[in-house]
């Protein structure tokens, strides 16, 4: 009677495991509509807000050289928010199907599936950001800052995307209900998106709402992006800590808090 001999563990590195799991999420994105959503969502948002509101807002005044320039950060924010929604959907589907538990039983570091999901979400974010920038250029947005400012614009957008995707992934993993989560996430997206300084300047809000509209995170992201894109009128804000600081603080704060919580949830081996 000899004990069952256990085969030697295949020696696969963490990087290879992460790459395999990332490809699992990226490959079907050509067919299951994720890529289409990443492309269509910023386009729909650009058409839907720029075309009807251009004349209305230009008449009412927004302080920049064109409404396109004013709206650009909001187009980016919407693109990024849609990616966060699909990130939540993916995390919730994996949790609902029991795949997360299954992965937890496999010989790999517990944070690898999380890392793979976030990588796939960032892949969608990069595409959505590219489409958003193209949409902006089509409606006449220009980047007035230096090369470094434009690089900063893209980097800042991706940082916000990373923070939001981490948060959405955590919510999705905990909720385990893909359909419910996408509908529930519409609320913060709607409220924070519309009640921000991305569509109308803060002083056009009712006075009781101005404090919130000015200081909520989406507005702070918008201020940062607007300054980095610059404007010929010179009203976009000066690139510096006073404008970029609060937005960066929000993004890094969300990143750290939700990232840490996400790792805790992912490494907790019981489901």
């Amino acid at each position, binding site marked *: 009677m000899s004990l069952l001999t256990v085969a030697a563990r295949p020696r696969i590195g963490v990087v290879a495991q992460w790459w395999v799991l990332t490809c699992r999420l990226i490959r079907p994105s050509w067919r299951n509509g994720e890529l289409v959503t990443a492309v269509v969502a910023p386009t*729909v948002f650009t*058409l*839907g807000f720029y*075309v*009807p509101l251009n004349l*209305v807002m230009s008449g*009412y005044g927004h302080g920049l050289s064109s409404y396109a320039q004013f709206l650009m950060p909001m187009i980016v924010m919407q693109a990024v928010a849609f990616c966060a929604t699909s990130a939540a959907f993916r995390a919730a589907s994996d949790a609902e199907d029991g795949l997360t538990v299954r992965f937890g039983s496999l010989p790999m570091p517990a944070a690898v599936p999380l890392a793979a999901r976030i990588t796939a979400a960032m892949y969608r974010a990069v595409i959505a950001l590219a489409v958003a920038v193209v949409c902006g250029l089509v409606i006449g947005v220009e980047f007035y800052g230096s090369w470094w400012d434009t690089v900063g614009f893209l980097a800042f957008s991706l940082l916000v995307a990373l923070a939001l995707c981490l948060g959405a992934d955590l919510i999705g993993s905990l909720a385990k209900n893909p359909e419910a989560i996408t509908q529930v996430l519409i609320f913060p997206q709607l409220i924070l998106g519309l009640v921000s300084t991305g569509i109308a300047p803060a002083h*056009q809000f009712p006075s009781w709402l101005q404090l919130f509209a000015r200081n909520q995170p989406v507005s702070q992201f918008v201020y940062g992006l607007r300054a980095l894109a610059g404007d010929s009128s010179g009203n976009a804000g000066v690139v510096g800590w006073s404008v970029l600081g609060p937005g960066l603080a929000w993004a890094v704060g969300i990143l750290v808090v939700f990232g840490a919580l996400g790792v805790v949830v992912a490494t907790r081996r019981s489901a």
Partner: protein
Amino acid sequence: MTTTDTRAAAADLPIVRGRTETWRLFLPQTVIQTRRLLLRWWRDPLTLVQSLVFPALLLIVLNTVLGKQVSTFSGASALYGSVPMVALVGVMSGSLASAITLGRERDQGLLARLWVLPVHRASGLASRILAEGARILLCTTVLFAVGVLLGFRFEQGVLAGIALFGVPLLYGLGFATLVTAVAVFSAKAALVEAVSLGSSIMMFFSTGFVPLTAYPRWAQPIVAHQPMTYAIDAMRGLSLGGPVRTALLATVAWSVGAIVVFAVPAAVGYRRASRR
């Protein structure tokens, strides 16, 4: 032991003799099924939020963020555009939710289960139409109530006020026929996204969002002739005042057109979905 119990229980059940699939019993059967659908909708907090709370919130936010600017631009309160518009958006997202429910009931075999019961064949589809109508009226009422709180007024009297409810009802039934026809043949997640993106585009390119003159020249014909604009213009006329006839006739044409075109595919698809 168990078999005796089951037998005893079965003996207590009412026994039906004679045909039950008659036109005389069609009405009570439809009412029972309608009640089932409405109860199901009422007890699911998520769809309730989606079809009642979400449109109301959208109306409040739109009015707060853009109401002043649009009112200044058009010279009349923006609410007379945004209340009808959001009512229609609510109607459309409600139909979408019920189309998803229909797809799920098909996948779970519930439709097939109902199909083998001795009830009139038409009662299944008829109950869905009736439930849809009841839901549209309730959602519209809630939304008009929120609108009145914000400053929307029925300025054309009682009769126009009643007609005001007829427009979203007709529009909603037309849209529901379309969505049902699509959903019974393919209830995929892609359908949901396509229909929601499509209805968002329709919302942004309608005269309920901003007046027609705010759109660039190339977009104006599209905005002017799409079904949502007609329904909004009809409702604006019935509440604020102004010409109603053309818009109302065009709404009837669009809605009845959608019902005529999609009723047969919807019925055929429903039958097919029930028999799988």
